[in-house]
């Protein structure tokens, strides 16, 4: 995430690990899919939100 900010990525959704940006192998299949869905919903929220510089969209910014 610090790299994403430093190179100026405008909208950033933090995830849980470099080898699985859209997953979490610690979880069971159903739970992992629910987590992936949350990440994508955050991404959809992010691309519909105005920003002026690198902005992190974590769980708090999603209703």
């Amino acid at each position, binding site marked *: 995430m610090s790299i994403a900010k430093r190179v100026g990525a405008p909208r950033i959704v933090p995830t849980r690990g470099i*080898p*699985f940006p*859209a*997953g979490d192998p610690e979880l069971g299949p159903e739970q*992992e899919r629910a987590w992936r869905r949350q*990440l994508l919903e955050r991404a*959809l929220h992010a*691309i519909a939100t105005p920003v002026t510089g690198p902005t992190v969209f974590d769980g708090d910014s999603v209703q």
Partner: protein
Amino acid sequence: MRIVHYVNQFFAGMGGEDSAGTGPELRDGATGPGRKLASLLGDEHEIVATAICGDDYAASHAEFAAELVAQARERGAEMIVAGPSFTSGRYGMACARIAAAASEAGLPALASMHPDNPGLGEAAGTTVVESGLTARHMKDSLERFAAATLKIAAGEELTAQDGRIGPVARTNRFAQDSAAQRAVALVLTRLGGDRDASEIPLPDFDQVTPAAPIENAAEALIALVTEGGFVPFGNPDRLESARATKWVRHSLDGIDSADEGAFMSVHGGFSTVWANADPNRILPLDVARVLEREGAIGRLHGEYLGTTGNGTTVADARRFGMEWAADLRQQGIQAAILTAT
């Protein structure tokens, strides 16, 4: 000298973004800013033709540069100059590519752009002279461009005093002092307040202006892209696992999930065990399809774009990004979700 001058579709008077997909062409004589440039160059030189290409076309078809240089040579070009492109990214990249292709073909060449133009990273092996920030600085920029053109036409080297910018090939030279003495001198210089002093300039990350948000994801065409080394199983394009020099695209039509055995990751910077067991962990296709069916995503783009982000040079990464943006824009995509490893 017989000179061919490159400009984009806008400065050729063909239109703005609506004409950015226009392919390459050569037109007789000077056009647009080339007319003023021709008068500044005097009677010794003539702009025999103007090479033109749309910005989106140039950014997504790198071969346009070699094509235009070949056409220019057929017209008897003895030198090729490009720009000024100010801070316009796609235009700057096109100017750098044209000048680099001309240099490679053995013709003297020169591009003009602002030092912040991301195209500067593409200018390896050729010469770039500084322009102003925007077309408001056209007059000054053309004067400097013309002076640099005259110097290169005369077979002279351009220096920083002439406004030369961008990568300069590293050459060996003998230093007066030993490495230890130079290191201490550098520390003292930095302690003295010059925080940027260096014998080896580092790459610069440019500023990115965030795109405006989309109005409604439920009505948007959205693309999935990734730098996670995500490829069809078996890696048919032989995408590199490190220091990628290319990117790939593959159709997602009719595919509901990135299943094990259908896709894989060739990323060399982390263990791909988890990615290969469920490639949706790199490209979240399964859930994106669910959201598309439910109506939260208007429509998912029918293909993904991908590369490997592992030790990739800044110049290559910048080029991939600009090529992706141009490609996606041409296909009417409104937003892209990039999974990064």
